[in-house]
């Protein structure tokens, strides 16, 4: 099996980012948490969140411009499906306290049982959802 090197390298960059953020600034690189924290009524720590997200937007741009990264030019699903998906992702990550970066990298990376369970659950549900969407409803 050929190893998808780009995936491995990209993933390692995510790991470095999360490690730096936690080691130096004490923050968890869970994107849903970072964005969610920005939206709180009385957030006193908005600036670091904004800087991180702005950095992400810029890094995403640079990755495509200079390092062969990918940002798709269109999405295959309808606006309504995008909206429903977005709402579910937002609510789910808020209630569940994390997403693929928060639980999947930072949580599992600390061997947090909570995060392992969360990751297994969202992976399983996502797999079932894709199965139903592509092979049952198709």
């Amino acid at each position: 099996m050929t190893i998808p090197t780009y995936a491995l390298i990209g993933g390692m960059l995510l790991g470095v980012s999360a490690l730096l953020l936690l080691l130096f600034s004490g923050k968890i690189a869970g994107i849903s948490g970072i964005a969610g924290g920005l939206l709180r009524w009385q957030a006193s720590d908005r600036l670091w969140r904004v800087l991180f997200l702005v950095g992400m937007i810029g890094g995403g741009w640079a990755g495509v411009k200079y390092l062969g990264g990918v940002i798709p030019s269109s999405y295959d699903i309808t606006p309504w499906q995008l909206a429903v998906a977005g709402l579910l992702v937002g609510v789910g990550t808020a209630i569940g306290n994390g997403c693929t970066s928060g639980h999947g990298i930072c949580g599992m990376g600390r061997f947090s049982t909570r995060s392992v369970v969360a990751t297994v659950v969202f992976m399983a549900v996502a797999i079932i959802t894709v199965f139903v969407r592509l092979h049952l409803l198709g």
Partner: protein
Amino acid sequence: MSLLICLLAGVLFGLGMTISQMTDPKIVIAFLDIVGSWRIDLMFVMGGALLVFVPGFALLIKGRNKAVLGAKLALPSKTDIDGRLIIGASLFGLGWGIAGICPGPAFASISMANAELIYFIVPMLIGLKLPQWLVR
């Protein structure tokens, strides 16, 4: 200085997102489509991240009482596996399975994405805020 690190970490995260192609829902869905046209790639993304984070955390962070630049380590203190965790993870999985997009790739894509991305991001922000309204 700490704020600069946050910016740098964000840039690295965005680079990682686009280089790993996690910003492409097709590749994400292909990983989740285990009975169909399956692609292993997402596993290497998460594997690569853990390859760095697991030893890095164990060797450099575990046992510290503060971050290097002085701030508290914002490690989650919850350890119980409750209904909220399961329900939240399930709802997230459902949404992720529909579009193949999660928060990281969504933000990382903003600079160049098709305008349609807004149909995902705005509801996602609303969704993130919703539990805060309901719990008030």
